[in-house]
C-alpha cells in the first residue's frame, strides 16, 4: 500500500471490532478519516460510539481488525499519547484537585503543554482557579476537560459526547473554541453526539453508527450530493426502486416518498426531487437499521420513517 496515503489518514480502521462475550459492541468497522477533517460520530445511545472512541484512544484493544491513528497502531500508545487529546464522556479529572492544580498536572505530564492557551481559555470561561473540580458545575467540568485536551496541543482530538449535560451557551462557546483551534492548528477532530443538530455546523465529515455497525462514513458534502429525496406516484415506485439503491421509502395512498443513494442525476418525469436536510439522511440510516434489528421499532416511528425494503 502507498505509504504516503496511509499517513494522510488521521484515523484508519480496518475490519475493526470489539466483542464483550457474545455481544459485539462494534463490528466490521472500516473508516478512513482524512487529516484536518472535523468528523461527527452520530448514533443512538448504545450504538457503539464510545467503544469506537475508546478504541481510537487506545483504551481498548480490538477483538478483530486494526485501528491506526496518525499512521501508528493505536496499541502503541507511548508514541501516540502526546499527539492525541481525548475527552471521555464521564470527564476524567481528579475531583479533589483545584482548577489551578489540574493545570499544573497537565503541564507536568505533557511535554508539549501550551500554558498560555490553557490560561487564556480558563480566563475566557471565567473558571475559578481555586475551586476544586468536584465543586464545579457539569458544564464547567466539561470545559476544564476540553481545555486540558486542547492545551496538550494534540494533532487529533477525540471528544465523547462533549455537549451532554452542558447549557446551550457553554455549548456554543466550546464549539467556537474548538473551531478556532481547528482553523489555526489544522487539528483533526472526531466528536460524538446523539444530537445531530449539535454537530452539523461543526463537522465536514460524518460517521453514522447504528447497532454496532458503521452505516455511512463520508464527507457531508458528498453525502448531500449522493442522497436524493423524491416524491412521486406509488405506481412507478418499482421503476425507481429497481434503477437506484433505495435507502428508505414510505407510501401513503397513491404517493411515495423515497430516499435514494446514487451519484447519478435522477430524472424521472413523474418524480419530483425535494430539498433534502442532512437530518433526514441520518434518521433514515438510523431507522433502517433499527427496524431490521428490532421489529417493533417501526410501529413507533413516524410514517415517513416506516420503510419498505425493495
Amino acid at each position: 500500500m502507498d505509504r504516503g496515503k496511509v499517513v494522510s489518514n488521521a484515523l484508519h480502521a480496518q475490519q475493526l471490532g470489539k466483542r464483550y462475550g457474545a455481544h459485539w459492541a462494534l463490528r466490521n468497522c472500516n473508516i478512513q478519516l482524512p487529516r484536518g477533517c472535523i468528523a461527527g460520530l452520530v448514533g443512538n445511545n448504545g450504538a457503539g460510539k464510545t467503544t469506537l472512541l475508546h478504541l481510537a484512544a487506545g483504551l481498548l484493544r480490538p477483538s478483530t481488525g486494526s485501528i491506526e491513528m496518525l499512521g501508528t497502531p493505536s496499541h502503541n500508545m507511548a508514541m501516540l499519547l502526546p499527539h492525541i487529546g481525548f475527552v471521555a464522556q464521564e470527564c476524567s479529572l481528579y475531583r479533589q484537585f483545584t482548577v489551578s492544580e489540574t493545570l499544573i498536572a497537565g503541564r507536568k505530564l505533557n511535554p508539549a503543554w501550551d500554558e498560555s492557551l490553557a490560561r487564556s481559555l480558563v480566563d475566557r470561561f471565567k473558571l475559578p482557579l481555586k475551586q476544586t473540580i468536584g465543586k464545579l458545575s457539569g458544564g464547567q467540568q466539561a470545559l476544564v476537560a476540553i481545555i486540558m485536551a486542547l492545551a496538550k496541543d494534540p494533532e487529533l482530538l477525540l471528544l465523547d459526547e462533549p455537549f451532554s449535560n452542558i447549557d446551550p451557551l457553554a455549548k456554543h462557546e466550546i464549539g467556537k473554541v474548538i473551531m478556532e483551534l481547528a482553523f489555526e492548528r489544522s487539528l483533526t477532530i472526531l466528536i460524538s453526539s446523539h444530537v445531530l443538530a449539535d454537530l452539523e455546523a461543526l463537522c465536514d465529515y460524518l460517521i453514522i453508527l447504528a447497532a454496532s455497525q458503521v452505516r455511512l462514513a463520508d464527507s457531508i458534502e458528498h453525502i448531500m450530493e449522493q442522497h436524493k429525496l423524491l416524491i412521486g406516484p406509488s405506481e412507478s415506485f418499482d421503476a425507481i426502486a429497481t434503477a437506484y439503491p433505495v435507502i428508505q421509502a414510505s407510501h401513503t395512498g397513491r404517493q411515495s416518498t423515497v430516499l435514494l443513494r446514487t451519484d447519478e442525476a435522477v430524472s424521472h418525469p413523474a418524480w419530483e426531487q425535494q430539498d433534502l436536510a442532512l437530518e433526514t439522511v441520518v434518521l433514515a440510516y438510523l431507522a433502517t437499521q433499527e427496524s431490521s434489528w428490532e421489529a417493533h421499532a417501526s410501529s413507533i416511528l413516524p410514517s415517513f420513517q416506516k420503510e419498505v425494503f425493495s
Partner: protein
Amino acid sequence: MIEFHLEKRTGVAPYMQLVQQVKQALRLGLLKPGDQLPTVREVVSKIAINPNTVFKAYRELEHEGLVESRPGLGTFVQKSLANSSDPDLQEALRHELRRWLYKAFEAGLESEDITALFADTLRQLQKGDKPSLT
C-alpha cells in the same frame, strides 16, 4: 460588515445559510460593492462553524460573481443585488403584498402557511406554469 448567524434544525445546510445571508444583505443594500466580508477566522470564532463550511460559502459566492477574494487581504463584495427597478413600482408592489398578507392573516393563515404557499406558488411559476390572473 455583515454578521452571520446560524439556525439549527431549519434543514438548510449551514454553508447555504451563509450564502443566503450574504445575498439577502446584498439585496437589501446592507452590503455594497467594495465592502469586506468577515474573515473565516472571524466567522468561526463568532458562530461556531466549521472553517471549511465558511470557505465553501465564500467559494460559492465567488463562483456566482458576487464577491472576490483578494489573497492576503480578504473577501470583498463585487456586485450588488439591490433591486434597481423603479422605487415607486417597488413601493406599489410592497403595498399590494401587505394587503395580500393582511387577507391571509385574516383567513387564519400562520406565517409558516404563508411562506409555504408563497414558495409553492413561486416554484410553480418558475416551472413554467402560467400564472392564473383572475
